[in-house]
């Protein structure tokens, strides 16, 4: 009994936070999503009207959904593969690993405002570094962020530059692989390629799974860089209008709090379903060391 009281005192900050910043907002958001609400005048009950107009009338909603799905589908696999490959190379016991690790990791901690400014300048169609590189390779210059076709790949490229954080997770995973597995494989005459595909990658699947989940959730909430780089417009031709930006616009520029809340719930369901599917699929491809079956 005394333990319980003590424990509750210790976790009190979390309980308050849970009630004020999680439970109440979830309930309120669910309620707002069924109302027309500007945040000033009292909420007016409209039933499912917000959801109906999202799915039947709002062209921008589908555009934003499409943009976000595109971003996520391209970004998530690449942002897992890139640090994975880098970590595999780094794990070859090369000297100066700390130096290389730093070089790959640093971009991931640069403040979004600074990296967005920097990449706006790199991707500048006339004077930017990106087009200069293309010129050196003898390729035609691109419009990058000003081209409807290349705007999303531009943002993905920039996000990949900052995806080195995963390296540390993969390196930790690599260090956890028992050495005796490799010794046994070597005795059996398995070459390095076979060891990679039959030991290293299977043993790394928990780290890969973890990285995929984190990046999936992140990519569906992608906001800051696209907002800064397009000044919130989502241009050109709404090709960089991501879900989070449209939601922000509805909530804080149009003060359609009810409508934006409905958007938030749709997002929640999408992210939840995708995470659930990924989690279910994990049973067939993720191997936990020491787990049965």
């Amino acid at each position, binding site marked *: 009994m005394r*333990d319980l009281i003590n*424990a*509750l*005192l*210790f*976790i*009190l*900050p*979390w309980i308050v*936070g849970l009630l004020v*910043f*999680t439970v109440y*907002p*979830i309930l*309120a*958001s669910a309620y*707002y999503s069924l109302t027309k609400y500007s*945040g000033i005048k009292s909420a007016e009950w409209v039933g499912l009207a917000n959801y109906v107009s999202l799915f039947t009338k709002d062209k921008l909603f589908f555009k934003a959904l499409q943009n976000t799905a595109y971003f996520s589908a391209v970004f998530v696999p690449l942002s897992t593969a890139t640090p994975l490959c*880098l970590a595999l*190379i780094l794990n070859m016991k*090369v000297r100066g690993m*700390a*130096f*290389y690790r*730093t*070089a790959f*990791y*640093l971009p991931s*901690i*640069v*403040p*979004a*405002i*600074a990296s967005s*400014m*920097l*990449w*706006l*300048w790199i991707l500048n169609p006339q*004077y930017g*570094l990106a087009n*200069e590189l293309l010129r050196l390779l003898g390729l035609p210059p691109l419009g990058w962020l000003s081209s409807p076709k290349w705007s999303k790949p531009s943002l993905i490229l920039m996000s990949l*530059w900052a995806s080195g954080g995963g390296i*540390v*997770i993969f390196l*930790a*995973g690599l260090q956890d692989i028992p050495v005796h597995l490799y010794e046994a494989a070597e005795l059996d005459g398995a070459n390095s390629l076979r060891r990679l595909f039959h030991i290293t990658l299977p043993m790394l699947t*928990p*780290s890969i799974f973890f990285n995929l989940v984190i990046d999936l959730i992140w990519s569906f909430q992608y906001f800051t860089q696209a*907002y*800064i780089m397009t000044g919130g417009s989502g241009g050109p031709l709404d090709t960089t209008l991501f879900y989070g930006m449209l*939601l922000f616009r509805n*909530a804080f520029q149009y003060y359609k709090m009810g409508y*934006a*809340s409905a958007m*938030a*719930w749709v*997002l*929640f369901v999408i992210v*939840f379903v995708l995470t659930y599917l990924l989690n279910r699929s994990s049973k067939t491809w993720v191997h936990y060391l020491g787990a049965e079956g």
Partner: protein
Amino acid sequence: MNNTPAALAQPSGFTSQRGGWRARKHRRYVISQITAHAVLIALSFVFSVPFLWLVSSSLKPNEQLFKIPPVWIPKPFMWSNYPEALTYIPYFRYLKNTAYICTFTVIAMTVSCSLVAYGFARIRWPGRETAFMIVIATLMLPYAVTMIPTFLIFKRLGWVNTFAPLTVPALTGSPFNIFLLRQFFLGIPMELTDAAKIDGCSEFGIYRRIIVPLAKPAMATVALFTFLASWNDFLGPLIYLINTPERWTIALGMYGFLSYRFTEWGLLMAAATVTTLPVIVLFFFTQRTFIQGITLTGLKG
């Protein structure tokens, strides 16, 4: 370890079968090391080029920014870009605002999360596992769901356009940091605290005198991650502070700068460099803390 230069040179003299095998193995090792370094140097160059471009652009006079092909070494070095950028916008006021928010958030977060983590890791009580499952579940919740009602709470309190919405929530901790510290606290042997308990030390005494001193590395990790999140935050200040320019953070101030001086790349890059520098310096001083922290949250548990 046989990869010293002498060991590598030696096999060339051997022609016996065993020596030949060794030589081949060493040659393979050398080739793989050289390939790995070549690939790594090329890739780390690719990752670093944007930084070089950033610093180079921040020191260029205007006409050199718009040269094709671009110049890498500015001539002359326009050091004056820095003072100009930092005075054109009230950068030091933004810095003061950001520093205030960061300091408050880091202290509040470290204290609250360590208390909560103690309750989850060091005291046994009925319902503990269920409650901890809720912590994990909230980790997965998209911020979009709680963003609007939270804004409306702060609006009713009259806290919009003040720092409070960006600092006060830290007093209640964050699931990620609670998770991280709990993992660490669980790893401290119970025997260490049992003796103190028998001697009549209170739970808070144990927390303060035994657990906190032992958990300094993990708490440093929380402080570091919290500082970064706070320093880099854009959406929070955008929602709560956009209408009070005197309370803008660096991120908001730079966004404003970008929107009205968007062609003065030298100044913008100078401001971006100054904003990035603290983060990079911090990283170099705390590399170990970083790596341990990420490893700790990664997968263990």
